[in-house]
């Protein structure tokens, strides 16, 4: 019974707060309820009122009314503390399974100070963040990871109890962008056996490699010659074609080398090998079923390989599209536009 209600509530909240990397908190998505202390204080006010009635004491009446009014004012204060805050996930981190993955969030509070803000994701809590009015602060939330793959926190709880702790105003950020968790590196039993015969590999690859290129978005460090300019003119997207078959070195890390083993274990071996190669600064390529990364050197390359290992065989989680900046959604144009507001200085 309880579970049913909980699920319904979850469902309702998810509908109300769709996934987005950017959220501006306002009346539509802030929830507010008294805390335990708030409830006790309410009971105390009632007792005080009864004391005032029974002893016919005007000053107790006065104190009771004063404190009740302050409680109501505090409720609005707590709500306002959160309302207007804009939270943007600006970077979802990467890391190895079992590590904490940093999620970088930018908080902007254009109107008034946001004080004593807490962010929480599962068991991790980031307490006492203060964002002065008109300024922005970058917050790092470290989300623990267990398995390799995409790490998409279902909800990041954004909460404040300021000023009195009698009320708790909260909302959620449900990010679209996922962090990437690399497989936990496991030392491979026999490193040399994974080295493939380069000649043959390159030949076969260059044959069918010319036919289909691996199209991927432009990233920092890509050479401009590789940008598909025609496609850019058509769609506005900067994409890179990774033509297969232009590899040089025969050092290949191959998924198939560990045939018969568990998939996760294989990926762990490969991750370890990538790290090792990278440390030795040697040239290597990665061969996964359905994906080949050309041999190269350097940190960016290693990173790319690890990412490929991390998401191997997994679908990117996606629920609802992101709402990028400057988007108008019908009536509520004003709301969809992130009121950034650092304000005219």
């Amino acid at each position, binding site marked *: 019974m309880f579970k049913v209600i909980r699920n319904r509530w979850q469902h309702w909240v998810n509908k109300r707060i769709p996934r987005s990397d950017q959220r501006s908190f306002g009346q539509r998505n802030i929830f507010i309820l008294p805390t335990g*202390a708030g409830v*006790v204080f309410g009971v*105390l006010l009632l*007792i*005080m009122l*009864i004391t005032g*009635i*029974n*002893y*016919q004491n*005007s000053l*107790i009446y*006065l*104190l009771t*009314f*004063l*404190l009740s*009014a*302050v409680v*109501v*004012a505090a409720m*609005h204060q707590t*709500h*306002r503390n959160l*309302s207007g805050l804009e939270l943007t996930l600006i970077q979802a981190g990467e*890391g190895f399974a079992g*590590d*904490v993955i940093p999620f970088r969030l930018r908080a902007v509070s*254009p109107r008034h100070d946001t*004080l004593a803000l807490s962010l929480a994701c599962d068991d*991790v*809590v980031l307490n*006492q*963040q*203060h964002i002065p009015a*008109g300024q*922005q602060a970058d*917050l790092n939330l*470290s989300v623990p990871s267990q398995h390799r793959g995409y790490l998409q926190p279902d909800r990041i709880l954004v*909460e404040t109890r*300021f*000023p*009195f*702790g009698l009320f708790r105003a909260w909302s959620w950020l449900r990010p679209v962008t996922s962090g990437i968790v690399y497989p936990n590196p496991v030392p491979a039993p026999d490193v040399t056996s994974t080295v493939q015969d380069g000649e043959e590999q390159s030949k076969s690859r260059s044959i069918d490699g010319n036919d289909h290129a691996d199209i991927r978005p432009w990233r920092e460090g890509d050479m401009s010659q590789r940008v598909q300019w025609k496609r850019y003119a058509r769609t*506005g997207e900067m994409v890179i074609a990774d033509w297969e078959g232009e590899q040089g070195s025969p050092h290949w890390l191959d998924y198939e080398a560990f045939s018969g083993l568990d998939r996760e274990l294989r990926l762990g071996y490969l991750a370890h090998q990538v790290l090792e190669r*990278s440390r030795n600064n040697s040239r290597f390529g990665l061969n996964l079923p359905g994906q080949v990364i050309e041999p190269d050197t350097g*940190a960016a390359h290693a990173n790319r390989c690890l990412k490929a290992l991390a998401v191997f065989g997994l679908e990117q989680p996606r629920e609802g*599209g992101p709402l990028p*900046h*400057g*988007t*108008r*959604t019908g009536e509520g144009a*004003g*709301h969809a*536009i*992130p009121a950034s*507001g*650092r304000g005219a*200085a």
Partner: protein
Amino acid sequence: MINRLRKRGRSVESLETNELVSGRALIWLIASFALLLVPQWDRLPVWLMASCAVLAGWRWLAQSGRLRLPGKWLRSGIMLTLVAIYIATVQGRFTVETASSFFVLAVGLKWLETRSVRDFYVLFFILVYLATVNFLFHQEIHWSVINLVGVALLLVGLQVVNAPDIPGAMKSGWRRLGMMLVKTLPIVVLLFVFFPRMAPLWSVPLVSGEARTGISDSMTPGDISSLAQSSERAFRVTFGGETPPYRDRYWRGLILDRLDGETWQQGFGQQFRRPGRVSVDGGVGELASNQYDVLMEPTDQTWAFALEDSRAVSNNVKPDDQGLFRFDRPADSSVRYRMAIVDDGSSGQFGAVPDNAQRYLQLPRSGNPRAREFAEDLAAEYDNPGAIVQHLLDRFRQQEYFYTLRPPAMPEDGIDALLFDEKRGFCAHYAGAATFVLRAAGIPARVVVGYQGGDSGADDEYLIVRQYDAHAWVEAWLPGQGWVRMDPTAAIAPQRIESGLRDAMAEEGSFLENDWTSPQRYGDMAMLQWASLQLDRMNYHWQRWVVGYQGQSQMDLMSRLPGGLGMRELGYITAGIVGVGLLLAGLVNAWQYRRFESRDPFSRIVTRWHRLCDRAGVPVRHGETPSQLAFRLSRAKPAAAGTATAFARMINKHYYGREFETGNSAELGRMKRLLATMKRQADRKQQGE
């Protein structure tokens, strides 16, 4: 090189309230505790005050690391010891003093285990209620201010506990609290005025074990002279018409008609005391010219003080068969009641002599033989009781009797000693002696105890009657006249009756000789007198209009409003005020939210850009990035391509740029100029087509 990423959270703690409370927050709690104890200083035993100071000090030293908080065993030991002392001193009495002591003891002990935020909240609740309890005992304006400041300290402390590390927490905390109070004050005032003052839901007497200063229901010679050393206020009176002259201000309180050895007592008609509380306000509306309002300090007794020939106007006092006035219940807090002076003199006829003549002729079997003999001589000499009374007064006036606050000890046959040997005494001595003589002469007589006189308050608005105005005099029953007042003191020391004890004791110098702190002692210092009177006036109005705003005052105020509001209407009004208040707060909040939203200059520019795109035939699509929109715009209006791309880049930069690069007015200005150029370019193209 790829290094494993380490967690970089600023502080990873639990959200729960079991984190440790910070020293900054604690100091507020301790300060508030100290302040809220101040109004209790005369009620709490010294050992308890001292233990509280030690325990709170200990907690503070532990916070700053100079001491360690006691372990479980030591803590239990301290707790048991203090509770044992408490039980030993209380001895099973249940009064408000013992209850509030227990309360304070609980707070004191809690200091040693205040570690977490949860404990902080527990203390917060207890201290708020302690402030409430303080209001039961002290309602003067200065105590009220102390109490409210104590509560304000708690509320600032709560803010500190919820955000311990923000800079300037104290200043912003006060400002925030102040803003809240200012914003909510109208609602609080309306609620205070309109909240229906119901009758007590159940009766809870405010039992006090503390002896109050004031007259008591028995009189041994010497009792009233000790009262004369106190300048505490007994009651204050506002007259509707002329204030009666000093010598006529006889405030009758109670009648002592039974002489038991040396002590005069209330003989009969001692009423059964019902538990419960007296209605604390009475009498509403304008005072008629013959009416007067008395605001009496708590006495824990049922008697009310009234001038002779008075009639009760408010219904919280009732006349008894001796022409005195009584409350239903002991006055354990200040009480207001209203009386009227009736001129027909009929009130003196109470207590017809034939029925209870014995009662007013009672004397001990033996003692004071010379006084008895003197009375018998008088009775033999005069057949008219009035002449006996007159003779007695003449004797007091003509012979060398002295009125003094330092009478000699008269242990045996005190009345004889006073009348024939020492001839020095205070009002109680003379009243007792005169009654004795009259009774011995066969004239029904009784001792009346109350106050005589009263000084003017600031600007003669009202009279202040103090404890040193306590007085005792005699009433004798004369055939055809009824009860007649006879005051031996008036014969011996007319100044006492004409202008008060200060003047009567001017020669002796014994006025308030033990009370160094009383401003009344320094009657010759004009500034001091003025200040003390002004303070008293402030308190008087505070008590009358704020503290005394109870059932009848409220009903009176409401009856002056059009429509004649009853209790039920008041309930509706209160509900309405609360509802409207909440609604208003919500609306103001929402309105501020919207207003600010449209004010944000950055989003306004973006909106303007979107409108421009719309007009250019490129409506914004759902889920489009600024770059995509700029791209589509440049295809539709190639002339504006450069500016559109630059503009989109600036939007991106605004959101994703580094903190210090964005958000300044230069950036906004550049965006505005870009937008203007873009608009020109788009329009020019249109004209060209």
